[in-house]
């Protein structure tokens, strides 16, 4: 009976996390299209519901009622598994994101490693989808985006090391609390820029949206997908974007901490600060989509391997030597 109670309790907590995330993914798609529209002097979706807020729900309904077509020569189990994996991994990672000091599903010791591991698993949904379609264009697209994601993961990992050197703990709440006096965006500003651009590439956002360069490369790994399965890829992608924004705000923007610990700011509840920072980063993502032209593939690879990787490695050495010289290495036992 006791087990049953804990089980129901846990399921309740998980639903309380997952459903708001799904709703906010829908809203974020609307925001993305709206910002994109405004930058191009259009209105964007504004018909369904107030300000067009229900546009994504209408789209989702359309996807649900479309037929799921599985190509005859596709590898059926893997073909069906691929969007499920993408979607699940994008949602599972949210388990460790702290919305305040106590409001977190699972406050584990190695939170940042968990996030990194889950985001590096995300590449499988894409490879599996592209390969199982058994068709040239999805396969080429899958290889393209897998190579891109693997390349940029390396520099994200090294950026995380930069932050960890200053914190001395892998726990996400510790990382946030270590920024109480100074957000890491100030001392590690170049790393924040590199992280932001790598996050764009990692989530296949413009200007690095070569995996689905619809105009010149016949879309990507999701070419053969239709109906709800395509929608799951797409939802997973946006959930990943939100996750990257959350990661950026935890690592650099002080997570759920207010900007300054003074009267009108510190009475605002912590989750609001976290959500506000995530939205701010997402707004930057949306603006970038509207104002930057697409990269060429070799430029993308060059940027990842020849610019970001050496730069972030050098910055690790700089951070480490700075901390060592001024005797600021974290010594606390968390």
């Amino acid at each position, binding site marked *: 009976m006791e*087990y049953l109670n804990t089980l129901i309790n846990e399921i309740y907590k998980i639903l309380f996390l997952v459903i708001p995330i799904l709703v906010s993914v829908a809203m974020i798609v609307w925001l993305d299209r709206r910002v994109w529209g405004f930058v191009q002097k259009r209105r964007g979706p504004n018909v369904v519901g107030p300000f067009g807020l229900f546009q994504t729900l209408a789209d989702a309904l359309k996807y649900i009622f479309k037929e799921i077509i599985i190509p005859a020569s596709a590898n059926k189990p*893997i073909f069906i598994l691929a969007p499920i994996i993408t979607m699940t991994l994008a949602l599972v990672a949210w388990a460790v994101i702290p919305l305040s000091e106590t409001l977190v599903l699972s406050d*584990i*010791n*190695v939170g940042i*490693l*968990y996030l*990194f*591991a889950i985001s*590096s*698993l995300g*590449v*499988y949904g894409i*490879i*599996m989808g592209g*390969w199982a379609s058994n068709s040239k264009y999805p*396969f080429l697209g899958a*290889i393209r985006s*897998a190579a891109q994601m*693997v390349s940029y*993961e390396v520099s994200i*990992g090294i950026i995380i090391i930069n932050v960890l050197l200053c914190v001395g703990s*892998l726990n996400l709440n510790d990382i946030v609390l270590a920024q109480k006096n100074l957000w890491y965006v100030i001392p590690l500003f170049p790393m924040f820029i590199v992280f932001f651009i790598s996050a764009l590439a990692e989530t296949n956002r413009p200007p690095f949206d070569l995996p689905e360069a619809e105009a010149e490369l016949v879309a990507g790994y999701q070419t053969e997908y239709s109906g709800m399965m395509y929608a799951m890829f797409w939802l997973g992608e946006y959930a990943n974007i939100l996750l990257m924004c959350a990661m950026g705000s935890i690592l650099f923007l002080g997570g759920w901490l207010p900007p300054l610990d003074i009267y009108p700011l510190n009475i605002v509840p912590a989750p609001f600060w976290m959500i506000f920072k995530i939205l701010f980063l997402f707004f930057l993502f949306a603006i970038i989509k509207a104002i930057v032209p697409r990269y060429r593939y*070799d*430029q993308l690879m*060059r940027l990842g391997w020849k610019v970001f990787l050496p730069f972030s490695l050098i910055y690790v050495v700089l951070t480490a030597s700075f901390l060592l010289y001024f005797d600021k290495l974290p010594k606390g*036992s*968390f």
Partner: protein
Amino acid sequence: MLAHAIFFYFFSILAIFSALMVITSRSTVNSVFFLILDFISVGCLFIMVGAEFLGMILLIVYVGAVAVLFLFVVMMLNVAQQKQSWFIGQKSTHIPSGLIVSVLIFLELLVVVGGWKYKENIMSSSNLVIDTSVTNTHSIGSVMYTDYILYFQLSGIILLLSMVGAIILTYRKRENVKTQSYIKQISRDKSSAVILKDVEFNKGVKIDD
């Protein structure tokens, strides 16, 4: 404890099942997928033991990087076509070498499991102090970067050497390939890119020289 036992048996059965499927699966790509499943379930077992750092590193390194390369190779080279000659052909040379390797690994396992009996002696003779109050990430760090720093750096250098070696082996300078140079493309300006030419009637001009 009951939940712990259920999860332990779930993950260990999954690990053994997928390990078996790796070697019996008919399609090579499927066996790589089962290998990934195996890595993931072993990672979960690590986490259940309390070695969460090792579990996560296993996920990041093996599943996130090594297995992706495996998949790339298997998918691109189409290894699946060669599978018939392994068992049916008369001149198979893989089975004896495979047997030797598996017997060696089996013997090593025997030594490890047999050595478990003398665990107390080894623990008491070692001068490592096991502190249970710090997280295992901290304890791994404090052992690896103090007592074993030389071995750690040595293995890093070996990895670097093998990386350089692999690049040298595969690198070849190709002739007659048009490459795009960033410096050239960015530093172009109007004076060097646009030339005004007087074209003679009925003769045209020669471009591209």
